[in-house]
């Protein structure tokens, strides 16, 4: 190999190392968007942590009350909204009563959006669910973990009225619900603070409530210690967690559909990492020689 060729090759690796980030962005756009146009069914293996969440809900008797805390905003919607929809489908299929609340201002609205989607299903429509009897939305209350702590003594002190201004004493579903002793499970859908961690610290540790969760992929690893200690029944992590939940339910939804897109995007990022390392070592070798 003559000196000129070696020089050319060296500049190729160096160019590769200093690749314009817009080229990487372009590849990611294609990797994320293109698979959305294809219907590819992929086998979704279910992890024990996702199974834990599913079983916590599945094990409840019809008529049991589930308190669902919606603690996220539209930023985390691609990951958490499919979980929210699957959660409502699961609850309504098993005739569970759902009490919705939010520690984030946008949370109760996200719940309404999920409900609107779920109410389109034939099976759910057939149940003729009624507000105040089968589900209720208490809305948002400011106060973060203090709200969780206060609800341990009395729901009414944190939420004297539901989201529509009806005193909770006048809501049939809320009759007999004084505190956590009167709900069978808490389901926390969260994207940060306040969220699942605060539910564990102030709900589980102080009032010994049963808690299951759905979190963003970034947040989920932080919940694994709580699952291991039994403070948390299970956790759905990111879109993959949503897809696992949908698989367990036997109702493939948006999370399962989008998994192909996420899989391709991850593969492309891995490919870039391999190329980056090849270029790194090749240019190092050239420099040495």
């Amino acid at each position, binding site marked *: 190999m003559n000196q000129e060729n070696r020089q050319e090759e060296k500049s190729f690796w160096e160019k590769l190392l200093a690749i314009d*980030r817009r080229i*990487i*962005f372009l*590849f*990611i756009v294609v990797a*994320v968007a293109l698979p959305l146009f294809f219907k590819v069914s*992929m*086998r*979704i*293996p279910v*992890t*024990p942590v996702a199974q834990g969440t599913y079983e916590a809900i599945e094990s409840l008797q019809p008529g049991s009350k589930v308190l669902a805390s919606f603690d996220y*905003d*539209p*930023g*985390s*919607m*691609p990951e958490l909204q499919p979980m929210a929809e699957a959660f409502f489908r699961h609850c309504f299929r098993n005739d569970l009563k759902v009490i919705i609340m939010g520690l984030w201002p946008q949370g*109760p*609205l996200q719940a*309404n*959006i999920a409900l*609107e989607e779920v109410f389109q299903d034939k099976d759910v429509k057939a149940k003729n669910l009624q507000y105040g009897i089968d589900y209720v939305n208490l809305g948002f*209350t*400011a*106060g*973060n973990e*203090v709200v969780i*702590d*206060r609800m341990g*003594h009395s729901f009414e002190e944190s939420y004297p009225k539901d*989201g*529509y*201004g009806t005193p909770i004493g006048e809501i049939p579903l809320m009759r007999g619900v004084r505190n956590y002793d009167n709900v069978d499970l808490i389901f926390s859908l969260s994207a940060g603070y306040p969220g699942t961690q605060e539910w564990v610290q102030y709900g589980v540790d*102080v009032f010994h409530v049963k808690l299951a969760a759905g979190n963003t*992929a970034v947040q989920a*690893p*932080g919940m*694994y*210690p709580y699952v*291991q200690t039994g403070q948390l029944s299970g956790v759905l992590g*990111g879109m*993959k967690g949503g897809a696992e939940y949908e698989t367990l339910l036997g109702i493939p939804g948006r999370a399962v559909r989008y*998994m*192909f897109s*996420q*899989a*391709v*995007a*991850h*593969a*492309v*990022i*891995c490919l*870039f*990492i391999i190329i*980056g*390392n090849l270029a*790194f*070592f090749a240019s190092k070798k050239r420099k040495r020689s």
Partner: protein
Amino acid sequence: MRREVPLVLTAVVGLTMIISHFIPPLNILKDLFEDWFFIIAAFAIYLGVLNLLRVNADKIYKKQADAPFGLVVIFGFLVITIPGLFFSGGRSFSDPGTPFYYLYIHVYYPLSATMFALLAFFVASASYRAFRARSVEATMLLVAAFILMLGRVPIGDWITAWLPQGYRLGEWADWIMDFPQTAGQKAIMIGIALGVVSSALRVILGLERAYMGGE
């Protein structure tokens, strides 16, 4: 007095909250302090809104370089708030079909999701530049990230379908999540908890006064 009163209040409230956990009759005081907190938290929202408006109006008034952004903030605030407060059926503002719901779904929803989605591009670009096998530690991190990125999506199991059960990428990813990851998280949690305890004690005892805006 400007210093002593907040210090005493902090000490009394902090100690009461801790002690009430062990002496239930003190819950009356705890509940009272929590009521105060609810009121302050609710007012903090209004304070935040007013502050946002004041800061941005100031920018426009002083014709600062970023005044156009201030204008966008105030315009966005009014566009969402006015339909929400006056034209969306009062407390039913979040119901499907109201103007507020329409704006939330068609403006706030996509904008917010877009901001979050941008992370994917930065993560990809950063991974390309930062994930280099420069040392043993960096190589371990690289290998773990590689296994997780592929193992946490179905493609990982698909690539390694030829391997016997228990050796596929998905199972490796689960092992990393269940053991090294969880062990690391626990260590971080314990460290943070000890830090929080010591910081709380410093605040309650008046040694840490930065929250009062000085020292």
